[in-house]
């Protein structure tokens, strides 16, 4: 998975080794202020899932521990995030608070919320399209609140998102499941 948005560039690669756990690597180069680089192994855990007749709700935890680097200063990096989402074939909602500790480089808390609607109900072999709206809150950044309208497409195991944020950054995200 790769995310390029107003916060920077993120790349992660994960292997799902049990039905509820995945292990992988997380790399992030931040922008919008300090150009911090973070490299950590990560573990993603499905904490709770609700399978409903017309939807699914989930709570995930994602956590990593590794190193952060900024202007020749290397520090321990620890981060954890919780992601709660609900998705039906028509609606999508998510909320994610994230806590980051990069030693004396940065300590931050940020949160992200998304709402999405599918303009048509696609089946398995169809191209799925979502119109989404994302709001980020970064108390430690120059732009505390950033809004990003975006379009999500996915087809089978390929996901692609493109958007444009209120602080004038292009968002391009992609994800492939193997």
């Amino acid at each position, binding site marked *: 998975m790769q995310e390029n948005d107003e916060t920077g560039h993120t790349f992660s690669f994960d292997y799902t080794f049990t039905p509820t756990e995945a292990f992988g690597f997380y790399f992030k180069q931040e922008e919008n202020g300090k150009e911090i680089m973070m490299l950590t192994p990560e573990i993603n855990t499905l904490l709770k899932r609700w399978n409903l*007749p017309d939807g*699914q709700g989930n709570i995930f935890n994602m956590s990593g521990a590794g190193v952060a680097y900024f202007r020749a200063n290397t520090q321990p990096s620890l981060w954890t995030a919780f992601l709660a989402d609900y*998705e039906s074939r028509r609606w999508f909602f998510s909320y994610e608070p994230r806590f980051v500790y990069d030693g004396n480089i940065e300590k931050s808390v940020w949160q992200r919320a998304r709402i999405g609607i599918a303009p048509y109900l*696609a*089946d398995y072999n169809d191209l799925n399209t979502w119109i989404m709206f994302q709001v980020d809150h970064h108390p430690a950044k120059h732009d505390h609140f950033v809004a990003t309208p975006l379009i999500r497409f*996915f*087809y*089978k*195991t390929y996901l692609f998102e493109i958007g444009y944020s209120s602080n004038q950054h292009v968002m391009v995200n992609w994800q492939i*499941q193997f």
Partner: protein
Amino acid sequence: MKKYLITMGIMFGFTAAASADTIKATVNGMVCGFCATGIEKTFKAQPEVQTVNVDLKGKLVTVTTKTDQNLDDSKIKQLLKNSGYSVVNIARTK
């Protein structure tokens, strides 16, 4: 008469030997293509399975077994649980 019975016996035996199950599982939580792909991949990896079809609208996973192969309900439930979904009902036809 004896010849007729033998012929019928062979035909019946052939029919029984050539039978395969079509299993329709109604599944909760299946809302996206990612879900469907995971389920399809899981079932295709089973040696008993001939075909898999996922219908998001109907909330159905349809599995056809290979000739003379069987996939019991407990295994189907476990495979779908491991894929992250809940089984509501399983119906079978020969």
